[in-house]
């Protein structure tokens, strides 16, 4: 290290290396514990700290929302972020590193499931506590988790299989409406569908069935694109999928039975943070399993050279069918969750704007990468929320950012990277 000093490392470099030294021994679990600590601290003393710093209330999204409205509050917000989030996370993470590493190492020797479940439990606890402060945070987290599912399932088709599918909002709409109808017919006394057929208490238990029904509906809809994809690739398939999106949207608008252009409301609030979190984890787990299997890698073979894939015994029709139906299934599930989170859906929301957002998340995060999809969905959702106070300028800023990413990293930030759970939960040092 003395060497560094002598050779005159620039301050930024020195800062980075000391940061690295500070954080290197902290395993993922340390960070999760730190986040949990920060969330607890906010719950216990967040209001008081905010008051001391001259803020009206706890900044809901790290202060972004306030900062744009009241620039004078920026120092207070920064101090709040440092005191309530940064310092506790760093302190707990760093100080607990030695014992936590031993714990993680012990867990690591058990079946992988155990480690993963413990980590997920901690993550959920931190999110739960953090979002307990306001309904806004719950809603935002729910939508972010849904965005991850959508991005990941779209990446399956656009990234892993290399088609440019534009129909994802259509699949999502199919799932949203199918799941909503399932819930409304069975468990809600509704203006359109009449008396509930089953006691409302059974609703939450049958919610997975409703979601799977939505997913199945979307998967069946995906056949409209999967079957032409046997003969057509590239641009023409993109248009077929785009036409499909418009057809689904227009069909729903013309179906008075489901509310036409006014949409469908009154879905019971089955989709709490817990439910959405579990489904999101399931989605990541299953898709990640799939893309790492030979059946999943067949998608890449179809993308890179279909002729060679056929010659190497790969059933390309089955592969394409699987990719479209499987991707659509998860879009449908996400749609069902979306409908039950917002408790109201309109066909107009499944439009080109939503398509552009989904595509942006996929291509920003990175093609052919579960990591990339998670990062893309999270970062763009957060960015989009954080810049919301800017209103129109936000929609100039975000596209500009994306163009820059496309120019300098045309395949996205984290493309072609395997998501290896075993590495993530590994002990450090």
């Amino acid at each position, binding site marked *: 290290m003395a060497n560094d000093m002598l050779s005159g490392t620039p301050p930024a470099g020195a800062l980075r290396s000391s940061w690295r030294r500070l954080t290197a021994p902290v395993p993922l679990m340390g960070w999760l514990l730190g986040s949990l600590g920060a969330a607890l601290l906010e719950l216990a003393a967040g209001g008081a700290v905010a008051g001391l710093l001259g803020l009206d209330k706890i900044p809901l999204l790290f202060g972004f929302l306030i900062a744009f409205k009241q620039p004078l509050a920026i120092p207070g917000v920064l101090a709040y972020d440092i005191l309530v989030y940064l310092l506790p996370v760093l302190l707990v993470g760093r100080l607990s590193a030695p014992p936590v590493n031993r714990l993680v190492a012990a867990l690591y020797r058990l079946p992988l499931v155990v480690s993963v479940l413990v980590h997920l439990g901690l993550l959920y606890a931190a999110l739960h506590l953090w979002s307990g402060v306001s309904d806004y945070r719950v809603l935002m987290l729910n939508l972010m988790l849904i965005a991850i599912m959508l991005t990941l399932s779209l990446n399956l088709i656009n990234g892993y299989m290399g088609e440019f599918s534009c129909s994802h909002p259509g699949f999502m709409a199919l799932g949203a409406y199918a799941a909503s109808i399932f819930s409304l017919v069975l468990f809600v006394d509704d203006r359109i569908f009449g008396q509930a057929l089953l006691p409302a208490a059974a609703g939450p238990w049958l919610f997975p069935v409703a979601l799977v029904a939505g997913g199945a509906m979307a998967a069946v809809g995906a056949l409209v694109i999967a079957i032409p994809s046997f003969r057509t690739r590239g641009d023409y398939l993109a248009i077929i999928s785009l036409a499909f999106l418009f*057809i689904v949207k227009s069909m729903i608008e013309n179906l008075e039975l489901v509310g036409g252009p006014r949409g469908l409301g009154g879905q019971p609030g089955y989709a709490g943070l817990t439910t959405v979190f579990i489904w999101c984890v399931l989605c990541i787990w299953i898709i990640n399993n799939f893309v790492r299997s030979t059946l999943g890698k067949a998608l890449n073979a179809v993308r890179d050279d279909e002729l060679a894939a056929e010659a190497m015994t790969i059933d390309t029709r089955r592969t394409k069918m699987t990719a479209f139906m499987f991707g659509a299934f998860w879009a449908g599930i996400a749609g069902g969750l979306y409908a039950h989170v917002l408790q109201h859906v309109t066909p107009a929301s499944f439009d080109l704007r939503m398509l552009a957002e989904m595509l942006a998340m996929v291509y920003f995060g990175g093609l052919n990468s579960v990591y990339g999809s998670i990062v893309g969905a999270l970062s763009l959702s957060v960015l989009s929320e954080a810049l919301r106070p800017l209103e129109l*300028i936000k929609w100039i800023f975000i596209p500009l950012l994306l163009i820059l990413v496309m120019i300098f990293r045309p395949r996205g930030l984290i493309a072609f990277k395997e998501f290896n759970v075993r590495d993530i939960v590994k002990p450090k040092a």
Partner: protein
Amino acid sequence: MTFFFQNVVNALQYGSFYALIALGYSMVYSILMLFNFAHGDIFMTGAYIGFGVATGLTVLAAAGTIVLPNWLILVLTILIAMFLTSMLGMLVERLGYRPLRDAPRASAAITGMMIGLILEYGNLLLLGPQRRSFPRLIQTVTYDVGGVILTNKKIMIVAVSMVLMYALHLFISRTRWGLAMRAMAFDHVVVPLMGVPINTIARLTFALGSALAAVAGIFFGLAYPVLDPYMGIVFGWKAFVAAILGGRGSVMGATIAGFMLGFIEIFVAMVFPSTLRDLIAYSIILGILVFRPHGLFGEAYSARLRL
């Protein structure tokens, strides 16, 4: 029967817009193998530029600063808007597409969409969300031909569009630049090596397509004298579909498919409730593409997406 012919006239006018826009998509595609997804919003911007120029000139003329008859204002508006919009097109090419020429095509598609969003929201930011009414530059004259109502605007729009399309055809088939464009469309790898300046050709293609889109925008403003910031999305995507339907990169195909789309939309609305227009129009398109996977006039060609 008159009802039928009336709709034919309307469809021709509608089809002219689609065809003019679709040509822009198609030309860019044939030269650079990518769809300029910002094109719909270039059409919108063209319409607004036309709106600005026309309003400005009308105000000046009304104040007596300059003396211009209305028809001259229209001609000037069209020319100035074509020029400015083609500048915009070249700018989009330079900033948005040239850096991405060797990138995966999907990245270019995303960039195009994002440029479209920027144009759209830039417009919203400058002019606000309200609709604008286009100045009435020419007095509407109505002719009754055997019960079919024709207006001088409709005749002008269809006629000028056709003339422009024919001029484009001549440009592409007769001039040296047109030859270079056709050569590029034929082979993207070898032709640039033969000394055909790819950047100039790309710029030219964007300029031509944008100029046509500006004309479409102004005509749209004349025919339905309202402009709104989302017209690019609505029309652009449909024209894009027409461009594909015609067979990508086929200029003739794009023209015909543009008119065809106009006919489908108008005649669907004639028979069915207008809310079903999109549903039926897109179902027909889907059907065509499923059974003719390479468009109506495109040649069989298996696109391999580069990732």
